[in-house]
């Protein structure tokens, strides 16, 4: 089965979810482009968007239309060539509309798993539940005569457990997109030893056509991305617990969030990042990973407690941030949730005091955005800022140095424990998947 044939019938499980919808969009566009190639004329391409929520699927179709139109507007020059033989399509607008129709026409939104029985490729983007994933894979595999490839978007479940549980004979690999898949350039590719060369080649070709950067990762729980993020988050939580002995909890949390954002020149503080991903999701990923890590305890009582109290974070359907560990106004944290009093404490009440305690940011400091998008000057800016930080002995500088040292340690551990092939891969994942301005394994802070 060649590349085009493999993509003639595809199913995405969990298609209406945050990750599933992005994967569906990218796959639909790739499949439509194949269907429009002259050699594929007359062939039917079919993409099953499978989800348990009819409401979610309705939203998915709206999202698709808007996104495909934007994509079409950007590649109209090429589309005019593709539709050159269609005398009825003259103006750009007609051509764009036709392309949107051709993409949408491939997608079949359904709530039944049986549609996947004819597919050659199954993308899985459902909840991080190993048993459910195994059960669905097994059911599809037993009923599907095409010996389909199973690509899972899991960010934490070891792939070989799915392979063994569903008896897939090596027809499964990890194809881990970052959120949102349509924008983020990174794909973590987690291969198994018993994957066929043909399947790995197909995965690479598919990622390349989607213009993604592939970072190979070994099949160890959490892979590179969550391998770093979970441990980094746990370090932040431990630091808050340590500081809470000397100061109120809310102030300690504010301080660590600020250090991990401003002093480390990252896109957001560690607690904002946990909220962005979702307290429930982070807790869940840790739970999935932990059994596979005999030498450490990847678990947080604080997250358990917050989860029980219904403090979850995550995003609203319009992409705005829901309140979680922090409370947000226009995307900016304004209060900290205190599990003791079960209420938010306004940051404005202690901000000045805490900022004074932390000490000033380096004089050459610039926010992440200015540094990360400084076109060729990033390296130099980071060196200047962190050289200055190294000379400072304030609380803020000391916490930042300790935080970065831990991040370094995690990065190196991912290599020594065989998750990543090398530190460059670790740094690439954190820079492309998490938008860090620099990798965790660095020599900036000492």
């Amino acid at each position, binding site marked *: 089965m060649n590349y085009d044939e493999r993509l003639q019938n595809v199913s995405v499980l969990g298609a209406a979810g945050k990750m599933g919808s992005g994967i569906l969009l990218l796959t639909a566009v790739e499949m439509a482009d194949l269907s429009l190639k002259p050699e594929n004329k007359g062939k039917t391409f079919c993409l099953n968007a499978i989800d348990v929520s009819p409401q979610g699927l309705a939203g998915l179709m709206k999202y698709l239309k808007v996104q495909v139109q934007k994509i079409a*507007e950007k590649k*109209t*020059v*090429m*589309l*005019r060539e593709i539709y050159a033989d269609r*005398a009825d399509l*003259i*103006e*750009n*607008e007609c051509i*764009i509309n036709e392309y949107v129709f051709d993409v949408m026409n491939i997608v079949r939104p359904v709530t039944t798993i049986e549609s996947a029985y004819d597919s050659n490729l199954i993308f899985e983007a459902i909840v991080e539940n190993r048993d459910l994933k195994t059960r669905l894979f097994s059911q599809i595999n037993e009923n599907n005569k095409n010996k389909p490839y199973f690509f899972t978007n899991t960010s934490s479940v070891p792939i070989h457990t799915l392979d063994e549980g569903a008896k897939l004979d090596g027809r499964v690999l990890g194809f881990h997109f970052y959120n949102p898949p349509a924008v983020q350039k990174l794909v973590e590719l987690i291969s198994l030893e018993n994957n066929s060369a043909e399947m790995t080649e197909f995965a690479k070709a598919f990622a390349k056509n989607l213009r993604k950067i592939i970072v190979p990762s070994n099949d160890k729980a959490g892979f590179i991305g969550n391998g770093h993020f979970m441990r980094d988050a746990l370090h932040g939580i431990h630091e808050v617990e340590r500081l809470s002995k000397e100061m109120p909890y809310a102030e300690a949390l504010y301080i660590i969030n600020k250090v991990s954002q401003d002093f480390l020149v990252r896109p957001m503080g560690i607690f904002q990042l946990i909220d962005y991903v979702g307290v429930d999701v982070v807790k869940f990923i840790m739970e999935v990973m932990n059994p596979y890590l005999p030498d450490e305890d990847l678990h947080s009582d604080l997250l358990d407690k917050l989860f029980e109290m219904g403090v979850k974070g995550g995003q609203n359907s319009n992409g705005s941030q829901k309140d979680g560990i922090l409370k947000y106004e226009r995307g900016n944290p304004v209060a900290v949730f205190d599990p003791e009093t079960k209420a938010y404490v306004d940051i404005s009440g202690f901000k000045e005091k805490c900022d004074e305690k932390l000490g000033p940011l380096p004089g050459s400091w610039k926010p992440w955005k200015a540094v990360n998008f400084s076109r060729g000057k990033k390296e130099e800016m980071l060196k200047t800022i962190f050289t200055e930080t190294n000379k400072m002995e304030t609380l803020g500088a000391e916490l930042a140095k300790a935080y970065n040292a831990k991040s370094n340690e995690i990065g190196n551990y991912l290599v020594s424990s065989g998750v990543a092939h090398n530190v460059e891969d670790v740094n690439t994942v954190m820079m492309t998947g998490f938008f860090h301005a620099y990798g965790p394994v660095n020599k900036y802070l000492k």
Partner: protein
Amino acid sequence: MKKLRRKVYMAAGYNTVSLGTGRKEFNPKKERPGLEHYIKEAGQGTLKQIGGGKNVDEGAIGNFMASRFNKQGHLAGFIPMIDEDLQYKPCIRTEGACASGALSLASGIKSVLAETADVVLSLGVEVQNSMKAIYGADVLAGAGWFKNRKSGHAFFFPGQFSDRAGAYYEKYGMEYARSGMRQWFVNAIENARLCPTAQEYENKVPDLAGLYDKMTPNGKSFVDNLNVLDCSKVSDAASAIAILSEEGLERCGIPKSEAVEVISIAQVERNITNDPPDRTELTAIKKAVKQALEMAGITKDDLATIEVHDCFSIAGILTTEALGFAKPGKGAQFVADRNTARDGKIPMNTTGGLIGWGHPTGGTGVHQAVTIWEQLTGKAGEAQIKIPKDRPYGMTINMGGDDVTVVAIVYKRGDL
């Protein structure tokens, strides 16, 4: 007609801001002023200088495609909206693609010549940021023959002029040609920085030539032979000017020193269903310029400044050749040597032209006349150039489509 049978003047010009990318106040996601706003602002700007609508006999408005950009036809009906004293007066809308503005001028000039009017309010307007550029390209393609649309480029007009640039590269060398086109762009921005209504007024790029060189034309995302800096702006704007007889000047209390006299006008139409006979030549412009100069009884060397239709930098280069300032193939050199810069031999587009000031398609012809009026009467502010006594003439060249409709007008200060 060997010469105009009656004296015709222009005065009281007014330009709105040219709104679009480049202006700080432009935000494509927010609601912006519509056609009504621009027509009113420009019209009232001129009426204020000539004693109000009561002094006006006729109105003319040039517009290319409001019917598609704004879903609005019947633009003459907006002229009485400018001032209640214009109610029930004869008004006309003119259309000749990007030369619609100059056709509004021509219509006014003809009315004054025919003695059916002594004061005509001439306007030009286009509001084209109402849609994304990829759809705007469909609308602007209406300036070509629709039967060619299917085989044309997604960005139809940039495609047409990319082909012209390609033909010029092939004949005379790409690097050489682009050295002239680059200087054309640099001049346009430097001039626009001196004119507060220009779209590129706030452009602060320190190394314009360097920026230009970085942007190699890329046919995959745009067209083969031009980058976006070679192109005019997508603009929302209107301009207005009064066209008057001697009696009209008197009625409005405008001294001749505050007006420009229209010395000659040439209007040329090339068959739209034919491809240009030679892509490295602008034959309709050449013809119009020749006629206008002959009617004025002057040569190109008597001109102090010219507003040329640089919808693309290559059009600027080719126009210097059509004007006779450079032999075929030598226009790029002529421009690269700064001859058309504001301190050069023959300053062109002194407030930025279509690339620097902006190109509200149906408004451009009137904007060009306003600029020449400002320069010849000393009202150009920081953009003012010196008008030599022995070369007192100015010229505008407005082009519609790919060298299809052309209007060339020669002016001189009214009291000279």
